[in-house]
Each structure stands twice: as structure tokens, then as C-alpha cells.
């Protein structure tokens, strides 16, 4: 597969998701939320997973973390290799120990992810008592250190405060402190700044990028914001209807998208640095996951669709080293963009 060919770096990937399938069995039918997703991240690398709401970004992450809502959710195929070990077949206890210590996650909504009736200092401290066997006293000192690390002013005085007593930006920084407390190798951040304002968003992203460099972590950054991606990611994977439709190094993707959906996304966002005319909206709506169109799932909305697109599902074609596109007409798309 294309992922393997790109391995100029001799280091094996930290996380290697292969052909992952997840479905939800609900009363309305089977929703195929993830349909063969593959991606990989190396230590020190940031992979952005970009896609609109409902495209399967969070479900993929939940399956990787082993926190899928099940039932109704079921992993129906694929592998999730962490340092070569398949997380999906490993025992529950082993996996739990990896989670938190080696792999951790930052959620979009810090308020609901933090425990509302426990002080922030105690929540952070608990990570050290449980995983590192520290004494309560030491763990509290360590908690304050972590809070300082994510720039909470007057950390010592505020360690006794509860989550609701902090602003949105501060809560998100505390979430980051919790995720990084045990110095994990891999962090999955699911829309970490979507609920924040631009200036606070910039603060939080900056902090995350700085800590990532410092700890040399692998980072999977899930977002729907093309701007955030451009600022921090090394590579991008674009998702549509539970599939990766394009993967590429950041610069290449912006310079010339190789998939019509990516091109459409780039055309539909207004730009701060030049005032355009009419926005190139993608017509129509994303498909229902209980009824994904035959052939290419994007075909009802695609300006380039031909007969073959309604019958044959395009696989991920290798476009260039480190680049792939799931479009029969990737060459034409790339030529038009370039």
C-alpha cells in the first residue's frame, strides 16, 4: 500500500491503522461509519485528519483508543498497530495500561471530559498515583507543575478549583496537561480548539505544538478547520463518508489537491487574505451512512463524475511518493489544479 512505500524513514510507524471498518447497528439500519480507513503516524510527526461533521473522524479515533460506544458500535475489520502490536486483539488489561500511559486523547469538549465534582489538581494528581504509584503529596506537587507547564496563572492557588471555575481556554489547557501528564508516545486530539475563540485557539495550538516538539510525540490532530491544519500538520488525511479520500504532505495538498472533494473544500472557504467573489460551494449534501452511494461515494456531488464513478469504487491510487487519492480521475484533477 502507499503507506509502506513512503517509508524513507527507517523507523516503523508509531501508530498504523489498517483497513479499519466500524459500523453502528441501530433501529434505522446499519450505519457504516468507517469503511476501510488506513493511516499511520511516526514519532514526532503530526497527521491531521480533516473532514466534515459525520465523516467518521471521531469514530476512527474512538476505535483506536478502544472507547467506542459498543453496542451499537462494532469494529468489523482491520488492524490498529501500536509499535507493531495489534490493539484490537490485545487483552483488555494490557490495552487499558497502554491507554493513558502511552496513548492519550484530548477531547473537543473539556467541560464534559473533566470530572465536575473533583478539583482540577486532584484529577491531575490521580494520574500519577494510579499510573506511577506516587504518594498523594508528591502527586499534587506534580499536578501543580503540570498546570504551570500549560501556563495556568497562579497554578498553586488554583489547583483546588473545580473545572467550571476556569474559562474555556484554561479548561482546554488543563485537558492538555492531563493528556501529556504521563509523557505518552502518541496523542490523539479530537477537535481540541473547535469550541474556542481565535486568540485562545492560537494560544492552545501553540502550546500543543511546543509540547509535541519537546516530548517528540506522534500527534493525530482531528479537525474540520483547514486553517488549523495548515498551521501545524506535516501530513493530511481527508475523510469523506467513512473513507480516506486523499492523503498528502500539507504543502502539496494546498498547492494542488488530487481529489475533487478536497478541491471543493478548498474552494468553499472564504479567505482572510483576499476578498473573493462568489464562493465555490460544493452542491448537495454528504450521504446518509445507512445508504452510501454505489461507486464513488462522492459521485452525486462531484462536478467531474463520469459513468464509471457510479459503478466502480475508486481505490486509493498512488499519486506521488507519500500522496494518494481515491479518485478515478486524480490525474485530471491534479492537472487542473496545478
Amino acid at each position, binding site marked *: 500500500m502507499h503507506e509502506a512505500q513512503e517509508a524513507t524513514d527507517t523507523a516503523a510507524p508509531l501508530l498504523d491503522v489498517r483497513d479499519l471498518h466500524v459500523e453502528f447497528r441501530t433501529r434505522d439500519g446499519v450505519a457504516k461509519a468507517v469503511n476501510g480507513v488506513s493511516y499511520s503516524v511516526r514519532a514526532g510527526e503530526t497527521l491531521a485528519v480533516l473532514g466534515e461533521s459525520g465523516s467518521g473522524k471521531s469514530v476512527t479515533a474512538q476505535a483506536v483508543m478502544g472507547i467506542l460506544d459498543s453496542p451499537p458500535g462494532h469494529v468489523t475489520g482491520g488492524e490498529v498497530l501500536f509499535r507493531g502490536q495489534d490493539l484490537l486483539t490485545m487483552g483488555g488489561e494490557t490495552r487499558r495500561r497502554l491507554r493513558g500511559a502511552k496513548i492519550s486523547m484530548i477531547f473537543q469538549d473539556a467541560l464534559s471530559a473533566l470530572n465536575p465534582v473533583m478539583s482540577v489538581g486532584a484529577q491531575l494528581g490521580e494520574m500519577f498515583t494510579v499510573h506511577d504509584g506516587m504518594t498523594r503529596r508528591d502527586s499534587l506537587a506534580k499536578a501543580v507543575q503540570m498546570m504551570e507547564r500549560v501556563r495556568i496563572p497562579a497554578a498553586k492557588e488554583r489547583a483546588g478549583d473545580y473545572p467550571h471555575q476556569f474559562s474555556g481556554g484554561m479548561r482546554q489547557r488543563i485537558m492538555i496537561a492531563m493528556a501529556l501528564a504521563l509523557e505518552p508516545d502518541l496523542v490523539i486530539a479530537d477537535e481540541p480548539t473547535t469550541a474556542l475563540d481565535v*486568540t485562545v485557539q492560537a*494560544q492552545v495550538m501553540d502550546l500543543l505544538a511546543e509540547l509535541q516538539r519537546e516530548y517528540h510525540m506522534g500527534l493525530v490532530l482531528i479537525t474540520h478547520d483547514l486553517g488549523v491544519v*495548515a498551521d501545524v500538520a506535516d501530513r493530511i488525511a481527508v475523510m469523506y463518508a467513512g473513507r480516506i479520500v486523499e492523503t498528502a504532505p500539507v504543502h502539496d495538498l*494546498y498547492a494542488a489537491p488530487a481529489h475533487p472533494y478536497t478541491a471543493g473544500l478548498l*474552494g468553499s472557504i472564504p479567505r482572510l*487574505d483576499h476578498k473573493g467573489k*462568489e464562493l465555490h*460551494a*460544493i452542491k448537495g449534501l454528504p450521504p446518509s451512512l445507512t445508504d452510501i452511494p454505489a461507486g464513488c461515494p462522492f459521485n452525486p456531488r462531484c462536478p467531474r463524475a463520469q459513468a464509471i464513478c457510479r459503478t466502480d469504487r475508486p481505490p486509493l491510487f498512488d499519486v506521488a511518493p507519500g500522496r494518494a487519492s481515491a479518485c478515478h480521475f486524480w490525474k485530471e484533477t491534479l492537472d487542473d489544479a496545478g
Partner: protein
Amino acid sequence: MAELSKQAGKAEAAGQREPILQVRNLVKHFPLTQGLLLKKQVGAVKAVDGISFDLYQGETLGIVGESGCGKSTVAKLLMTLETATSGEVLYKGQDITKLSGRALKAVRRNIQMVFQDPYTSLNPRMTVGDIIGEPFEIHPEVAPKGDRRKRVQELLDVVGLNPEYVNRYPHQFSGGQRQRIGIARGLALNPEIIICDEPVSALDVSVQAQVINLMERLQDEFNLSYVFIAHDLSIVRHISDRVGVMYLGKMAEIGTDAEIYEHPTHPYTQALLSAVPVPDPEAREGRERIILTGDVPSPANPPSGCRFRTRCWKAEDKCAEEVPLLAVPTLYQGKDTPAAHASACHFAEEKPSVVSAA
């Protein structure tokens, strides 16, 4: 080029014509009370604290600012959904904050609103036809009973929805389609002004573009004036002729879109623009980012003098003592430069490296 002459034409027209809406020193304080039985006022949330601006016929005035700075409160005051603590909102010269009864009803017809959240702003138990036609119940003179169904179907058609959908319920529509229903309802009474409070913020990017294009088309078609409130600076730039930047209940800076986006003079605007992630790694290079430290202060207890001083890298003693007025900075007065627009800062000055070339 065509875009430029269109802009110039609009500005010229604005110079000659009376504004359709004039907002003067508008204030809204929400009392903070303590005690369960005998509610004692212990302070006030200064949500809007002295705001002035004009809106001209056919233009879009964008209002940007961070969460909690008072944007939605301004919208509600313009709609007379909240009572102003003080100040004036002049609609064609008449102060609507002082109106009541029939006179207020007549004005309200001309000022309509489109809300942020397409998922909760529509009544789930009403059909789309009833939702869009509801304003006719209050203003029967606009569409006599027999005409209503036809009028509703026309409105559905105008916003790009199938007129046969009149009997469907909101849950049968996607977010983008619901926002179109909200817009159709806003248009029902042929208003002159539409206040849009984050009309596309809850939508996905590809659907956002559809709704923005629709709003621009309707503006041209019906000569509507928009107040367009959003926190997304790129969308506001795209749709606005002029832009006002709010911070903690006050207007920090206001001007044409080029003046604000390419020649900001207020440190807050400069920080805000520099923080916007630009979706193009190449355009980003050479841009200086100003990362603000600290959190936004509480509007119940705003800093003395300039409200931005607790996060401003240029703050001096004067900033804590004197409230800076919203006016053309002395540095640029009488000069023919795009930096000569209103900015509420004692030390207002351009800082070219925060914006990339347009």
C-alpha cells in the same frame, strides 16, 4: 476591478444617503443580584457598554469579536428583544428604543433576524409552512389569509428549497436546509434590514458556502441591509462592506473591510487577525503572529481605562487612566490613507507584518 468600482460606488452612495440605522452610545447592563428572596443588586454585567455605528441601505456591516464580547446582545437590542439600559437606535431618524405598541410593531416588520443555531431555533412541532408563515399572523396586512400558502411556497423557492416541502417538519431537513428555512422566515415580511447572528457558524464548510452565496444573492435581489455577526473573520471579510471589531462590550475599531483587514491600527484587531489560521502554508510564511497572553476579563468587572490593556503588549500608564475614544487617530487625521479610520486606542498605529498582502 469590477469589485473595486462596486465598492467605491457603495461608499459614495453611503456618503450621500442617510443611514437606515444609527446606533448611538448603546448600553445594556444586566444586573447581578444576590440573595434568594430579597434580590439585592451587587453589580452588573456590562454586556454592551456604549456602542455607536451606522448601517447604510444595501450594505453589509460585519461585527466580529470573541465569545462574550456582546455581539448577540447588540443584535437583541437592535431587534428590541432586550430593553436598552441607555442610548439610541435610530431607524430612519426615529428612536426605536422609545417606541411601543403599534409604532413599534410597524418598525419591527422592517427589521428581521436570522439566528445562529438552525437546530434549535425552529419549533419542532410546526410544519415548515407554519414556521415561515408565522410572521403573517402578527402582520396580516402583508399577506391576506388566502394568499399565504402561495407566498410561503414562493419564499421556499427563493431560498432554494422545494416548494412541495411546506408540510414537512424541521427534523426532516439538514442543518443547511434549516438555515434556509430560517432565512425564508426572515424574508417573509419584506424587511429592509436583516440582523444575522452567526448564521452559518453551526454549519459544515461545504454547506456554509451555499448559505453565504444565497444570502449575497438575496441582498442584491431585495436591496437588503445586513448586520452580519460572526466570530469567523474570513467569512465576515467575504460578505461585509464595513466591519466593526468588538472587545468586552465596546467597539475597538470600525472601517471598510480593506481598512480593517489590511490596515488595522488597534492592537486587538492586529492580534485577532494575526491569530487566524490561514489555510495556505505559503501565504502564512512571513506573517508575524501575535499570541495574546491571559484570558478575557469578566464583563462584570472590566479593567479601567482601555479594556484591552490587561492583554495589550503596548499598554502604558495612560491606558489604565483614560478610556480611549473611538475616533480617527491623531497620527492619521487629515491624511489620505486607509489607516485613517476610527480606532479606540491611545497609540493606534499600523503594524504591517500582521497582515499578508491582499
